[in-house]
């Protein structure tokens, strides 16, 4: 199951600029092309939204998530739940972003070179 941070519900929604405080996660099942969405309950949290959002994704059996960015805590959580994470840069729709992922255009964030601190690194 793929999850994408989205501003609204469905494949035509625009992707979000945030992970932990994203409005929704649109879910896409690659095996049968079914679409669903989760209302991100973590967005109202005063602290720790990232970790809580990861837990929601895990409960929804997500194994790949497409994000705009990821804080260090959320990254720790993503790794601990063994969810793969890829980063998008363009503000496209959920559908276009999933296609980019399928075409191998998105960069993986949780690979061996990405440490828990990489979310803080300045370039």
């Amino acid at each position, binding site marked *: 199951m793929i999850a994408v941070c989205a501003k609204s519900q469905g494949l035509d929604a625009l992707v979000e600029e945030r992970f932990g405080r994203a409005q929704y996660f649109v879910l896409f099942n690659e095996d049968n092309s079914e679409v669903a969405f989760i209302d991100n309950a973590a967005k109202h*949290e005063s*602290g720790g939204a990232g*970790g*809580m959002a990861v837990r929601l994704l895990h409960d929804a059996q997500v194994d790949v998530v497409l994000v705009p960015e990821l804080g260090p*805590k959320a990254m*720790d*959580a993503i790794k*601990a739940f*063994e969810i793969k994470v890829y980063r998008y840069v363009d503000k496209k729709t959920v559908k276009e972003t999933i296609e980019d992922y399928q075409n191998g255009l998105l960069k993986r964030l949780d690979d061996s070179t990405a440490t828990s601190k990489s979310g803080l690194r300045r370039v």
Partner: protein
Amino acid sequence: MKKIAVLSGKGGTGKTTLATNLFITMGKGVLIDADVEEPNSHLFLKPNIQDTKVVKKKYPNVDQEKCNLCGACGDFCRYNAILPAKNKVLVFKELCHDCGGCQLVCQQNAITYKERAIGKISTGQLSNGLTMHYGDLTVGEVSGVPIIEQLHRMVEKEDWVWIDSPPGTSCTTVAALEGVDFALIVAEPTPFGLSDMKMVVELLEERNIDMAVVVNKAGLGDQELHDFCATKRIDVLAEIPFQKDYAAHYASGELLSVQFPEYKKIMEQILDRLLKKVGN
């Protein structure tokens, strides 16, 4: 015991100047600087530091051998500080509020607590013999509340306590107001100053704390501040005029009440009216 908090809607309104000068002019009691993110009253009072205590905060430590990843601790924690994942439990120390709940709900007895330092409290004596304490939150830490709570505990036995509170209405301000009998709000008569101040007034009203206002840099702004105080029936205890001399003197880290007799008079006037309000 009387606790008097000196507050302001935002930083830089002269809150520390007022708190330190009132303290010195009164010549009794103790001052605590609860503006732990940016304590600076010691820069004016210049205490001789005699003692520094490290302030610690607890966080859970999970014995992964005992843990069966049941998830109960994560379900309980309201602060997302503990997160049972696939093969281990993650702990986000900075988010933990030390409520003790996760240990309580863990059937496996897998949780114990560790401590870490989040800041310090320094205690010192002024040249006139008075004592002050100031808290200092380590840079990068999110909450100074435990430091402020400890400051309050340190002055439990004092007769009169001045509190230099954090500006604004954050949870550190709320912590600084614990047990406070009276609040002095320092306000500047500008539109921005007024809207920040209104939030402080609201906070004090919610907590049922009596208050009065001291207008700083009077003469710079308009009537709106006075109108607001009149409708809210908040007394204006004094107006400190804007003077270039004061600003220059402040920058040099000297106390205004020591240098300017007319400033000291204003402090005495405030103390006089304050004592009538809270009793001695």
